[in-house]
């Protein structure tokens, strides 16, 4: 397992500088009288990659939706670049450079892939051609099916379309809700790396993930959400090794399996060269 940690990445985004996106004590919910977020806070500095993890139903998606104006914020404040954006309409936020990939229902099923991507740059149609090339380059398997309706795609393919759509407009803040779910392992790795690369290119990212290890590996800082409240926060690596976090949220499966595999293999060699029967 690689242990290279470049600390310069972790605190990129100048702590102490003005946060780009800031949520303070958000209270939000769907049904009247039921608050899902019960005082959640989040800070995103320019150029930062922030991860959010937590158990199912913790309110992670709700938090992203609240940031994006899709869930009514009942109290608390929300600022982007110092300006109040509480309960602003989504399309206004898009114009201000915020992009969002929802967790479910994240494609337009009857539109073709290309049309889906076109919707991504709805507000700036001029750049469509140029961006399309860039994005299709990122997801080459979408190229040959450009004219196919997104509704007919497999789960993983949809996920790619969803991600691609969000990347079309070159946002300055990107909110990703479980972008890796349903992707094959190599595609997952790619997705995470791509996220990092995008982030490196200057996009500030908030990423919600259940593939928590991966998420913590790539992010500068992370929040652990539980029952609508911040439970833990800190640099990704710290959280990843925090026994409490491991016990409650990460589990030990990956390490167990890896350990078991290591034992079975006898040595650390993960490049078996014998089996080739396919």
């Amino acid at each position, binding site marked *: 397992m690689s*242990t290279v940690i470049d600390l310069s990445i972790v605190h990129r985004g100048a702590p102490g500088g003005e946060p780009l996106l800031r949520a303070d004590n958000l209270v939000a919910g769907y049904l009247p009288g039921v608050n899902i977020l019960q005082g959640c806070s989040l800070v995103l500095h320019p150029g930062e990659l922030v991860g959010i993890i937590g158990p*199912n*139903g913790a309110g992670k998606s*709700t938090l992203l939706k609240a940031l994006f104006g899709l869930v009514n914020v009942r109290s608390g404040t929300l600022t982007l670049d110092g300006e109040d954006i509480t309960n602003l309409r989504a399309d206004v936020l898009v114009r201000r450079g915020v992009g969002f990939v929802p967790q479910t229902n994240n494609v337009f099923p009857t539109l073709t892939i290309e049309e889906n991507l076109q919707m991504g740059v709805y507000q700036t149609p001029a750049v469509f051609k140029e961006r399309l090339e860039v994005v299709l380059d990122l997801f080459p*398997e979408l190229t040959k099916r450009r004219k196919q309706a997104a509704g007919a795609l*497999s789960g993983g393919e949809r996920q790619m379309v969803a991600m691609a759509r969000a990347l079309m407009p070159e946002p300055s803040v990107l909110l990703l809700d479980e972008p890796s779910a349903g992707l094959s392992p190599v595609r*997952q790795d790619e997705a995470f790396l791509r996220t990092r690369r995008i982030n490196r290119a200057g996009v500030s990212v908030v990423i919600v993930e259940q593939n928590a290890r991966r998420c913590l590996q790539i992010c500068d800082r992370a929040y652990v959400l539980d029952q609508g409240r911040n439970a833990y926060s800190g640099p990704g690596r710290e959280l990843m090794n925090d026994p409490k976090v491991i016990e409650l949220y990460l589990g030990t499966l990956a390490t167990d399996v890896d350990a078991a595999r290591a034992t079975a293999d006898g040595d650390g060699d993960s490049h078996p060269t014998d089996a080739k*029967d396919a």
Partner: protein
Amino acid sequence: MSADPQLAGSHALPEVAEARAALAALDQVPGVAKPDPMLVADGVQRTFGGVHAVDVAHLEVQRHVITALIGPNGAGKTTFFNLMTGFDKPDSGHWTFDGVSLAGVPASRVSRSGMVRTFQLTKALSRMTVLENMRLGAGSQPGERMLTALVRPLWVAREREITDKAMDLLARFKLDTKKDDFAGSLSGGQRKLLEMARALMSDPKLVMLDEPMAGVNPALTQSLLGHIIELRDEGTTVLFVEHDMHMVRHISDWVVVMAQGKVVAEGPPKQVMDDQAVIDAYLGAHHDTDLGDDSLLDEGGRIDAEADAESEAELEEPK
């Protein structure tokens, strides 16, 4: 053969242990015959506008074991599930479940015969409570017949059993506190959990899970795997699609790899995952590399090379 000996449940039924052991003797070639197949598919084909989504020449799923079905995105795994369970009709091919031919049998009959599936894109019954969702999963409730439904005493006893069982499963899936909420108000991961729990309500002979753990919290996944193993040990056959390799390695007894609609490899998890072709096409050699490694970010880095390899493999592999 077991991926992990410690997980071979001590209270497993003898036939389960036997079935798992029998796998060790098998050739690791696609379409290999199993000693005691539960599901046998032959020449099943499905095309969408010229694209062969599924083109399975022969596949057998061993009874009493956990079989994982893996493969790149768009390999045809979900479509294969749809075909087997009667939600889609193949262009050609036939298949048997537990010795009975199921070709052309409607989905509900397939399910009643003991083969229950879950959906990758969840189908929660939104305006019913979680508990009602669960109850609906149960079979042989006489109250589901219209006339008996009118006479309460005829079905309350069974209803009580069903409820108990549902509560039991809900607790296991950490959904018990949500039992009176509408399923439509669940989070994405909770829906996955409900979907799986609901499928288990009817004590299926073969349960087919389509990416059950995608979006489920890792800690919870871990505890649920124990449950799946328990199920197997009690005699249920499990076939699941999953992209989480830790999980595949942890619980599966046998792995089937699909690519571009075809079965391209089969075998015990360790062997399959060490298969270079599978690694190239699907896993990526370093899927357990720390992605925080900055060297990976350079264009043309290792991962990119693998991704390209996958794309190419996809194009070339099946003949």
